[in-house]
């Protein structure tokens, strides 16, 4: 009985978005106050700077059941702390390349630069990313059985 119930449940992907406090988080805010739709299964985690995102955070998100992880920050050159996103850019490039090397779908991770004025871009990016993840389906390669409900 119980098993059947679980099987019947419709699959909704879980997307984690790391947004920098100064640009992308404000961009998400603008998308909201402009009444622009973006999927409800995008869970935003506010970070002080995109540079705060440790590669371990990305893996941790996958471990806890995320199907896609996206990192948003200020456009290169516009970082509130001058240079944070330049470092983040190098780090994420290498991490994504490594995930790809280990055979994990490369479309599950993404970096987008969204400024505080780009509410429309934020909504568009999230819609598109959610669509990609929907198409890819459940994350099975980087999951932790201990964390499954």
């Amino acid at each position: 009985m119980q098993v059947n119930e679980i099987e019947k449940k419709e699959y909704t992907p879980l997307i984690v978005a790391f947004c920098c406090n100064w640009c992308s988080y404000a961009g998400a805010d603008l998308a909201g106050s402009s009444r622009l739709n973006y999927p409800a299964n995008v869970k935003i985690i506010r970070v002080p700077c995109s540079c705060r995102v440790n590669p371990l955070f990305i893996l941790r998100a996958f471990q806890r059941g995320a199907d896609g992880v996206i990192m948003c920050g200020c456009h290169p050159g516009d970082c509130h702390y001058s240079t944070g996103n330049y470092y983040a850019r190098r780090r994420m490039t290498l991490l994504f390349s490594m995930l790809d090397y280990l055979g994990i779908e490369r479309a599950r991770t993404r970096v987008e630069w969204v400024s505080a004025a780009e509410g429309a871009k934020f909504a568009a990016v999230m819609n598109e990313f959610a669509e990609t993840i929907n198409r890819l389906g459940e994350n099975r390669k980087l999951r932790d059985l201990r964390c499954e409900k």
Partner: protein
Amino acid sequence: MREIKELLVQKINELLDNGTVDRVAGWKAGEFCYDAAPAVFTKENIDELLYNGFCGANQSKFLVNAATTENRILALLKPCDTYSYNQLVKEHRVDPSRVYALGIPCTGMVDVNKIKALGITGITGIEEDGENLKIATIYGDASCKKCDVLLERCMVCKGKNHVAGDEMLIPDEEAPETPSCADRMAEVARLEAMTEEERFNFWREQLSKCIRCNACRNACPACTCRTCVFDNAKSGLAAKVNNTDFEENMFHIIRAFHVAGRCTDCGECSRVCPQNIPLHLLNRKFIKDINEFYGEFQAGADTTTKGPLTSFTKEDCEPSIVMERGE
């Protein structure tokens, strides 16, 4: 090799006698002649020092803890070890004023597992003979091609030149050379050319062998954090759990990432792995990417250049470059 050993012993005794150093970090034979392991010697037991084709272990990591006393310690560094030494000095993990670094020549270290794989067992000694190795065994003498049995790192030798050291045993120009006999990035390129599914299966097969003994971390000269992220009991990562592959993946991705841009490609991780996981392939992938994206970089080549992950240029490529690469 025998002449080098004689010269080395002479030099060590000279340095111990004139008080330059009071201890020596070298190699000592274990139960078998091929079990050469790092050890610290004083004047009393210096005759136990070993230097032969099995002394592949990188000494530099041990200096982090050993080079903390008033008196200097003598470090015997092969050419490739000096890269790791430089990197440790650069990160202020080793104080060079407490070390007397002696550059010693190397003609390529052998991997005993490769010799055993050729069917040669009961090894009691090893002698160089030009391109070949003469191996003494309890069943009589055997020989094999040196190129076939070298350690992974020696197959792609960085060259005979030392990049650090207070003194050289013999000048680099006069030192014997180890010809490089493999393409360093060939295996990485082969993996890259596979499909996503093949790559995933390859790494699952390899990483599922991991027993989380932490040998790779403990031997790695770049892994010198006083408190390692994996030693945090609260992180829930400490135990090896049988029912999930996530942990093996994460441990190795994060470990490789933490040494990215600092890894000198010394290959200790693969050498010490009791499960023979080709861990150097993860590090080499990062090295390959760094070279392609941000320009050629060799960690430990000097003690001043900023690492690729602690610097940037405004024109760096975007992370989407990974998506744009063809399957």
